[in-house]
């Protein structure tokens, strides 16, 4: 083991910032990070063992206890549930004789849930030893069970099991006009870098991650910093449930994304960029490395790019299962080999980001759009969309519709138009922007896709009349409680309280006052949390409570009060100790 770890650390240049990369490899090889491994890594990297333990405990793909030789994680997005995930998982659990959340005694297999894997248009999905598998069905599950029982290594499984489709179903400006390799970089130098920044400004491009900050402004602020060591980061930690467009962009348009990063680097004066790729997209890692290598050979990355005396390169770093790392400052912490805890702001990343140097963090789609704008001019982009939201938005459409997949629309398009295009009938509502976004009812379908009306990072989940809204809200609220980083009190405790309180109501144990108590927790979490996760964690409850108050009220029992825990079950230990089981040793849940 020592040799393996030392080799991994050597390949990673003894850099503590690459701790996550190192731990991923140790996990893959030994199926856990043992105490012994921790001591070796701490020694070799000259860091505290506590840093390693805390990183392992933070990321859900790293473990202190051994996982099975086959580590199976079912995607737990609401869309996976809508596609019948639970019965498939139960079936697998039974057939493989392993309980959900456990590792089988012989160590062959572990089975558990994981947050949305970004395959909502082709779910139910799972990760097996970190590799994504779409479109699970009975037949596929049987094949997988068979392969596991025969102890076939995952690398030898038939490729068809892993085949993932792009499903690009509607293209507009960005998806239609792919640029020639190097075109945007050349255009930037021909036009002049200052002029190029002005061109991006003229396009009105705003960040595509959801927050919508002006891209040109961000780049300008960063370029004006005194510190000249600067970094460009592409945020490919696409973790918002229901979003998968970055997966497709990186599979199909990686050159253009890297080109956008390179143009950004030229403008802000950066020599090093990073693609922070979510761990769930591990299967894209090799092919993205090849794209980078190809670009180096084409003179579009590395030294003296296009003979302009401009040096820039890109390193890909993988995440390890933490939604919070989509938040830019948490992402930066993660890139530095730490737990993904959002930083205090100010300072903002543009002044103090990676290694406390000025840093640009933009979404995959933002870089893609920037490359297009620089190559083809701002006009084509700016004339699309609305006044405040120019250009197009690439949507990941999933849920109840005939044709889930990738759709690109000019901003300002109505929700009803989108629903017609993807073949959604009998619509109950749409979750726009994922769990952290807004639930809109079928009374609001004329609302528009735009920063000023319905902003979205790309997630667009459709529900038809057969769905129970409370099931959806429950799934989302559990997601936030699972993904809260735990840094601040309101989010750490609040998201768990919210989950419990919601479960109490949805499971039929709520009584008068419980909906008010739910709303109170929501407000507290929303108003006092440290970062966007906590500030939006209550949105699923708040937006549905506002639209369907009767749904919540109808769940309540017509009694004064019912406690949130099972009274009678709590007495079980006492009954056992007292060796009693008479009527007086039992308690009713509510007064009779």
């Amino acid at each position: 083991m020592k040799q393996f770890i030392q080799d991994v650390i050597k390949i990673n240049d003894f850099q503590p910032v690459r701790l996550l990369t190192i731990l991923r490899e140790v996990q893959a090889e030994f199926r856990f990070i043992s105490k012994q491994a921790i001591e070796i890594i701490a020694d070799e990297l000259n860091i505290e063992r506590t840093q390693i333990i805390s990183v392992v405990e933070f990321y859900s793909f790293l473990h202190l206890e051994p996982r099975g030789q086959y580590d199976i994680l079912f995607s737990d997005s609401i869309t996976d549930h809508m596609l019948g995930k639970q019965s498939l998982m139960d079936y697998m659990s039974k057939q493989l004789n392993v309980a959900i959340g456990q590792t089988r005694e012989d160590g062959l297999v572990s089975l558990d849930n994981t947050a949305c894997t970004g395959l909502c248009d082709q779910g139910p999905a799972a990760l097996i030893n970190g590799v994504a598998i779409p479109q699970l069905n009975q037949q596929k599950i049987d094949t997988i069970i068979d392969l596991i029982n025969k102890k076939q290594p995952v690398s030898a499984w038939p490729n068809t099991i892993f085949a993932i489709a792009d499903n690009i179903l509607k293209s507009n400006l960005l998806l239609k006009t792919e640029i020639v390799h190097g075109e945007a970089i050349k255009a930037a130098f021909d036009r002049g870098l200052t002029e190029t920044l002005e061109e991006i400004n003229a396009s009105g491009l705003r960040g595509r991650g959801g927050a919508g900050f002006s891209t040109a402004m961000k780049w300008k602020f960063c370029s004006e910093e005194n510190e000249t060591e600067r970094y460009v980061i592409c945020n490919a930690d696409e973790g918002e449930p229901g979003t998968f467009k970055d997966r497709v962009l990186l599979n199909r348009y990686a050159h253009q994304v890297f080109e956008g990063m390179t143009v950004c680097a030229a403008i802000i004066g950066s020599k090093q960029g990073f693609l922070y790729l979510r761990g769930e997209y591990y299967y894209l890692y090799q092919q993205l490395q090849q794209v980078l290598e190809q670009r180096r050979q084409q003179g579009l990355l590395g030294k003296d790019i296009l003979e302009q005396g401009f040096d820039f390169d890109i390193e890909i770093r993988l995440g390890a299962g933490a939604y919070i790392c989509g938040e830019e400052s948490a992402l930066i912490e993660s890139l530095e080999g730490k737990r993904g805890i959002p930083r205090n702001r100010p300072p903002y990343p543009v002044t103090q980001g990676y290694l406390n140097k000025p840093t640009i963090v933009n979404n995959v789609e933002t870089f893609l759009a920037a490359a297009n704008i620089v190559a083809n001019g701002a006009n084509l982009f700016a004339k699309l969309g609305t006044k405040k939201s120019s250009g197009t938005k690439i949507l990941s459409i999933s849920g109840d519709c005939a044709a889930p997949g990738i759709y690109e629309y000019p901003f300002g398009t109505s929700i009803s138009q989108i629903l017609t295009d993807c073949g959604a009938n009998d619509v109950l509502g749409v979750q726009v922007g994922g769990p952290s976004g807004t639930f809109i009812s079928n009374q609001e379908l004329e609302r528009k896709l735009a920063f000023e009306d319905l902003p979205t990072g790309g997630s667009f989940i459709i529900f038809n009349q057969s769905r129970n809204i409370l099931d959806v809200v429950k799934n989302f609220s559990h997601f936030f409680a699972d993904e809260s980083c735990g840094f601040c009190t309101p989010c750490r405790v609040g998201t768990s309280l919210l989950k419990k309180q919601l479960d109490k109501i949805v499971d039929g144990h709520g009584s008068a006052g419980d909906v008010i108590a739910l709303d109170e927790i929501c407000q507290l979490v929303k108003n006092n949390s440290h970062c966007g996760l906590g500030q939006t964690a209550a949105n699923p409850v708040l937006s549905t409570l506002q639209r369907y108050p009767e749904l919540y009220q109808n769940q309540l029992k017509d009694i004064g009060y019912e406690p949130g825990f099972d009274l009678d079950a709590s007495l079980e230990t006492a009954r056992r100790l007292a060796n009693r089981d008479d009527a007086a040793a039992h308690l009713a849940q509510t007064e009779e």
Partner: protein
Amino acid sequence: MSKTISIDGKDIPFKEGQTIIEAATEAGIYIPHLCHNPDYEPHGSCKLCTVKVNGRNCSACTFPAMEGQEVVNATKELADDRQKITQMLFVEGNHFCPSCEKSGNCQLQGVAYHLNMLDNHFPHFFADREMDASHPDILIDHNRCIFCNLCVRASKETDGKNVFAISGRGINKRLIINSKSGQLKDSDIAVNDCATHICPTGAILVKRTGYSVPIGQREFDHKQIDEVTLQKEHKDHG
């Protein structure tokens, strides 16, 4: 002319680089806090010091004071939220004041008194947490840890030791000890370390000293935490 911010309508001078809480403390205004200690880099995690700055909620311990800021601190709305955040800390761990040797000297208890907290309001988590009594002189009761990070900072910055770290995620967050066994006895901690004495609650205690000051004569038995804190933090740092 010195620069000023306004706190609850009152003009407060500040020096460049000061945070809102630093300016407030100097002016004799108390903003409740637990994870903040002026000797250390602000942390901003307990969120008790949340104030409204130009209408937006911000942590006073991390947010820089800037000319012309309108800060709102002493309102019923903020006091209610602070009380509930304190209640969250109480239900998250296992805090039994009457049987805790820190009672009367505990800042969590002191803040709760100050915010007029009369019950725990939220359902308890009944978290399963451990005690570490392995060290001959120092005891850790994880039931009372509120993750203020002060022992982590003190051990690192003042003691130069790195005895503590925060691990886990979300509600499973926990304090861990830097030793091969994970136990305090095998760590570098010493009874005179700053980290041994900085805990605002009863999570880190020095053994055999619990009742050297009797209950009834302790810090918050007669004085409110605002008075005690202002005196301490203003004197040392004003």
